[in-house]
C-alpha cells in the first residue's frame, strides 16, 4: 500500500504566483475535475445567495395580509426565479460539483473520463444561468423582452403561451434552462463513463463508496429525464415562436401533456437533488460514528430501487388534475412504494450510529440535522401521497413546507455538512468549528421558524404562490413566524460565508486526513495534486484506509 503515501509537497504545482490575471486564466481554461468541482460549488453558492434574496423579499411581502410591499407581478417573478434558480442553478451544480470533485478521487482515478467535456458542461451551466438572469436586464433594454419569467418554475401550459405570457420572458426561461440542462447531461455522461471505466484496481462496484453509487444513480436519472424536459421545452418553443399547438388547448393541443412531460422530469429531479445528499450522509455518518456503514448491500439496493421507482411516480403531482380514480390509485401506490427504500436508508444510518462513538464535529451536526428534518419531510411526503388528503393539501402552503423540509432540511443540510467535511480535502484547512456550530444552530432555528408554520397555514387553507392573502383567516400569525425565521437563516449563511473566507485567508494547514476517514479521497494529499494520485491506488475493500490503519483486522473479510 505504498501507493497511498501523501505528497503534499507537489500539491501546489503549476500556479505559482504569476499574478491575478494568470490565475484567472488558469481557472478559466482548466479541465481539472477538482477545479471544475470547486467552481461548480462556488458559483452554485453565488446563485444560492441570489435565490435567498428573492425568498427574503417574498417573505417580507407575506409578513402581513394585504401588504403592498411588492406588486403582484414582481412577486410572481420572484417565486418563479427563486424556484428555477434553486433547482437548476443551485441544487444541480452544487451537487454535481461535489460529484465532480469527489468521484474520481473516491474511485482512485486521475480525472473524469472526458475532462474537456467536463469543462464544457460547466461553462454551459454558467451560460444558461446568465442567459436566464439576462432577462432582468433585457426587459429594460429591448422593448418586448418582457421582464423575468413569471409563470412559475413548473411553467404550466397554457400560461406560457404567447397569449398569456407576452414578451420574451418565458423564452429566456426555456433557453436558459435548456442550455444548463445540456450541461447537466454532459456531466451525467461523464460520471457514468468515469464510474464504469476508470475505477482503480480492486474497486469493484460493490466496493464503491456509497456517494459514488448515489452519483451514478443520479447520472442515470439525469440521462433518463433531462432530455424529456428539453424535448418539452423545444415543443413549447415551437408553440411560442412557430405556431405549433402542442400545449394549446384552443387548437386541440393539451395543457395536461405539459404537466405529464414536466413532472416526468420533475419528480425524478427531486431525487436527483436528494440522492447526492444521501451520499454525503452515507460518508459522514460512518466516519463520525467510527463505525462501518450498516448494511451496505441493502443501501445500494435501496438506491437503485429509488432510481427505478422514481420514474413511475410523476402523476402524484397531478392528483388534482382530474385523472381517473384508477390512475390516482396507481400513482399513490408507486409513491407509497418509494417511501420504503427511503425508509431503509434512514434506518441504516441510525443502525450505523447505534453502538458507535459519535463525534459531533460540524459535519456530523449537519448530518444529524439532516436525519431529523428529513424524517419529518419524508413523512409529510407520505401524507401527500394519500390522494384524498392531497386534494386538500396540494398547492397549499403545506406542500411548500414539505418540500423545503426535504430540499433545505435534507439537501442543503447535506451540502453544508459536505462543505465542512470536504473543505479540508479541497483546501488543506479546516473550517472553524466554533463558527460552524453557530451556523448550524442559528440556521436550524431559523429554518424551523420559517418552514414549520407553513404546514399549519396550509392546513388552514392557504394556497401557495399568492402574493397576498385575506386577513382574518387565521393565517397571519403563521406567516409572521415564517418571516421572523428568515433573518436567522441569513445570519447563519453569513457566518458560513465569513467562516469560509476567513479560513481561506488565515486557516492553518490541518494535514491530509483530518477526520481519520476511510475512503480513497483521503489517501492522497490535501489538497490533492493535479493528477490526484502519484500512483494509482489499489483498493482492498470498501474502506481501503481502514485496512491500512487496522492491518490486524481488515475489512475485506467481512464483505
Amino acid at each position, binding site marked *: 500500500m505504498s501507493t497511498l503515501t501523501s505528497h503534499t509537497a507537489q500539491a501546489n504545482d503549476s500556479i505559482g504566483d504569476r499574478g491575478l490575471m494568470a490565475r484567472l486564466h488558469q481557472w478559466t481554461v482548466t479541465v481539472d475535475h477538482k477545479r471544475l468541482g470547486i467552481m461548480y460549488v462556488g458559483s452554485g453558492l453565488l446563485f444560492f445567495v441570489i435565490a435567498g434574496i428573492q425568498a427574503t423579499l417574498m417573505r417580507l411581502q407575506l409578513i402581513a395580509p394585504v401588504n403592498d410591499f411588492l406588486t403582484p407581478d414582481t412577486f410572481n417573478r420572484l417565486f418563479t426565479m427563486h424556484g428555477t434558480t434553486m433547482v437548476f442553478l443551485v441544487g444541480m451544480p452544487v451537487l454535481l460539483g461535489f460529484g465532480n470533485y469527489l468521484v474520481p478521487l473516491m474511485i482512485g482515478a486521475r480525472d473524469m473520463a472526458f475532462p474537456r467535456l467536463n469543462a464544457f458542461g460547466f461553462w454551459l451551466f454558467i451560460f444558461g444561468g446568465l442567459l436566464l438572469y439576462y432577462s432582468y436586464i433585457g426587459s429594460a433594454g429591448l422593448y418586448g423582452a418582457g421582464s423575468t419569467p413569471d409563470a412559475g418554475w413548473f411553467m404550466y401550459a397554457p400560461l406560457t403561451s404567447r397569449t398569456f405570457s407576452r414578451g420574451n420572458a418565458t423564452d429566456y426561461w426555456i433557453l436558459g434552462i435548456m442550455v444548463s440542462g445540456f450541461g447537466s447531461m454532459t456531466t451525467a455522461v461523464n460520471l457514468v463513463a468515469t464510474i464504469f471505466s476508470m475505477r482503480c484496481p480492486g474497486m469493484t462496484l460493490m466496493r464503491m463508496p456509497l456517494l459514488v453509487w448515489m452519483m451514478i444513480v443520479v447520472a442515470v436519472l439525469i440521462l433518463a429525464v433531462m432530455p424529456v424536459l428539453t424535448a418539452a421545452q423545444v415543443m413549447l418553443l415551437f408553440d411560442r415562436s412557430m405556431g405549433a399547438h402542442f400545449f394549446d388547448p384552443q387548437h386541440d393541443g393539451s395543457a395536461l401533456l405539459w404537466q405529464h412531460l414536466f413532472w416526468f422530469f420533475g419528480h425524478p429531479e427531486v431525487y436527483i437533488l436528494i440522492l447526492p445528499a444521501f451520499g454525503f450522509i452515507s460518508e459522514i455518518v460512518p466516519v463520525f460514528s467510527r463505525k462501518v456503514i450498516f448494511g451496505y448491500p441493502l443501501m445500494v439496493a435501496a438506491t437503485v430501487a429509488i432510481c427505478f421507482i422514481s420514474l413511475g411516480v410523476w402523476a402524484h403531482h397531478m392528483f388534482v388534475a382530474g385523472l381517473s380514480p384508477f390512475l390516482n390509485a396507481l400513482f399513490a401506490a408507486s409513491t407509497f412504494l418509494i417511501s420504503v427504500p427511503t425508509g431503509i436508508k434512514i434506518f441504516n444510518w441510525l*443502525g450505523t450510529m447505534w453502538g458507535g*462513538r459519535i463525534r459531533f464535529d460540524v459535519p456530523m451536526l449537519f448530518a*444529524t440535522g439532516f436525519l431529523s428534518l428529513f424524517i419529518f419531510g419524508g413523512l409529510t411526503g407520505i401524507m401527500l401521497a394519500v390522494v384524498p388528503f392531497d386534494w386538500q393539501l396540494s398547492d397549499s402552503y403545506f406542500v411548500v413546507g414539505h418540500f423545503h423540509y426535504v430540499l433545505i432540511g435534507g439537501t442543503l443540510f447535506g451540502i453544508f455538512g459536505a462543505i465542512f467535511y470536504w473543505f479540508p480535502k479541497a483546501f488543506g484547512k479546516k473550517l472553524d468549528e466554533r463558527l460552524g456550530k453557530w451556523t448550524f444552530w442559528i440556521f436550524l432555528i431559523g429554518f424551523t421558524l420559517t418552514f414549520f408554520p407553513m404546514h399549519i397555514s396550509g392546513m388552514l387553507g392557504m394556497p401557495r404562490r399568492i402574493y397576498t392573502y385575506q386577513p382574518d383567516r387565521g393565517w397571519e400569525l403563521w406567516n409572521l413566524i415564517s418571516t421572523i425565521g428568515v433573518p436567522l437563516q441569513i445570519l447563519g449563511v453569513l457566518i458560513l460565508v465569513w467562516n469560509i473566507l476567513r479560513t481561506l485567508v488565515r486557516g492553518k494547514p490541518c494535514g491530509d486526513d483530518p477526520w481519520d476517514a476511510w475512503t480513497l479521497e483521503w489517501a492522497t494529499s490535501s489538497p490533492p495534486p493535479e493528477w490526484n494520485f502519484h500512483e494509482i491506488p489499489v483498493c482492498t475493500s470498501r474502506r481501503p484506509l481502514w485496512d491500512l490503519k487496522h492491518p490486524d483486522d481488515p475489512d475485506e473479510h467481512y464483505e
Partner: protein
Amino acid sequence: MLLGALLVLLGALPVVLPGAQAADAAAPGASRVTTSSVDSTPAARAVSDPARKPLPVICAPGLAPNPDAGDARGVRGPRDLRDMRDMRDMRDMRDNTTSPGMLDRPPSSGAGVTAIFGADSPPSESIRQLAWLVLGICAGIFMIVEGLLIVAVIRFRRRRQAAQAAQEHEPTQLYGSNPIELAWTIVPLLIVFVLGLVTIRTIREVQLTEPPEGSLRVQVIGHQWWWEYRFPDELGDGREVVTANELVVPVGRPVWLELESADVVHSWWVPRLAGKTDCIPARTNVTWFQARRAGLYLGQCAEYCGTQHANMLLRVTAVPPDDFRAWLEHQATPAVVDAGVDEGQRLFAALACLNCHAIDGVSAGMFGPNLSHLASRETIGSGIVPLTRANLRAWIADPQKLKIGCNMPSLKLDDRQLDLLTDYLMTLR
C-alpha cells in the same frame, strides 16, 4: 426539530382541530366588525336600507352555536329581495383590517374559516377522517424514528474522558444484520400497504364519476381572475342562469360541479366543502359537495394562474332549498330597472362596458362577469371588496387600483359618468 414537535403540540392543534372552533362559536360574527370610514359617506348611506336588521350570521357555518337546531333561518342566506337588501348591509360591517391603497374588505369569518379540518360536506368529511388516520400513523412513526435518533445521539456520543482512553480502539464494527434489515423493510411495506388500502377506499368514496342522485348541476368556468357559474338545466324550462363569483346552493343537496376554464389552469378549492380540482382548458373535470349547514363557505383559486391568482377568491353560500329556488327564479328574471337610472343604462350600452359584460336585456358580452344581478352580490372584484356604492364607483373609475393587472381597463370616465353608471348598476338587484 424538537422545537417543531413542540409547536405541533402547543400551537397548531387548537387551531386545526375542529373542536377547537367551538370557542369561537360563542362570539357573534358581528362583534369583530366595525364601520369603515370609506362607506360612512352620505352617498353610501343613501343606498342602504335605513331599517337595518341585525345581520344574519354569515360567519362560517361551522361556528354556529347549534347548527342542527330546527329553525335554520337564523343562519341562512337571502330569502327574498328584501332579505338580500339586508344582506347588502354587511357592507357596513367589515373587519377593520385595511391597508393603505385598498378599500375595506368583505366581512370575514374568523380563523379556521378555510381550514381543511373544518369539514362540512361529505367529501371533505371523508378526507378529514382519512387525514386523522394518516396523521396519527405518521406521528407515530415520527416519534419512534426521531426517538431512536435522539437515543442514539445521547447514548452513543463520544464522551471526553472516554475519548482519551479509547483513543486507540474503535467501537465494534457491525456490518449489517439480515434479520434486522429484513424487519425494517417489511414493516414499512405493511404500513404503506394499509395506507394504500385506506387511500383507495376513500378515493372510491369521494371521487365520483357520475353525479349523485338528485344533484344540482353547476358549470364552473375559471377566468383570469374570476369565476363564472352556470345553472344550465335547473329551472327546467330552458332558461339558464349565469352568475359570477358567488355561488348560491341549496343546503343538504348534492352539488355536481363541472369545472372548465376559459383561459389557463385554475383550481376550485373551498376546503370545508371539498378538496380542490383543477379547471383545465378544453377539458371538463368534475367534483361534488353537499353543504351540511347554511352559511358562507370561503376558498380561493389554488392553481397559479397569473398576476392576480391571489385575488381569485371563492364564496359559496348555502341556503335552504326554498330560498335557493327563489334566488334562482329571481336570477333568471331581468332586473327591474328603477326609473331614475335610464341615463346610466344608456351610458352602459354606449360605452365599452357591453363588450365584456352581459346584462339581461341590455348586452351580451362574455369576457367579464355577468352583471344582470350585480347588486344582489355581496362583493366585487371576485371577492376582494364588499359591494358598496363607494367601492363599486372606485372599481369602475380604475379597476387597476383595487386589483392590479386585472383585465378590466379604466375607461377614464368623468365624475358624472361614474355616478350615473354606479347608480344604474346598484339597481341591478
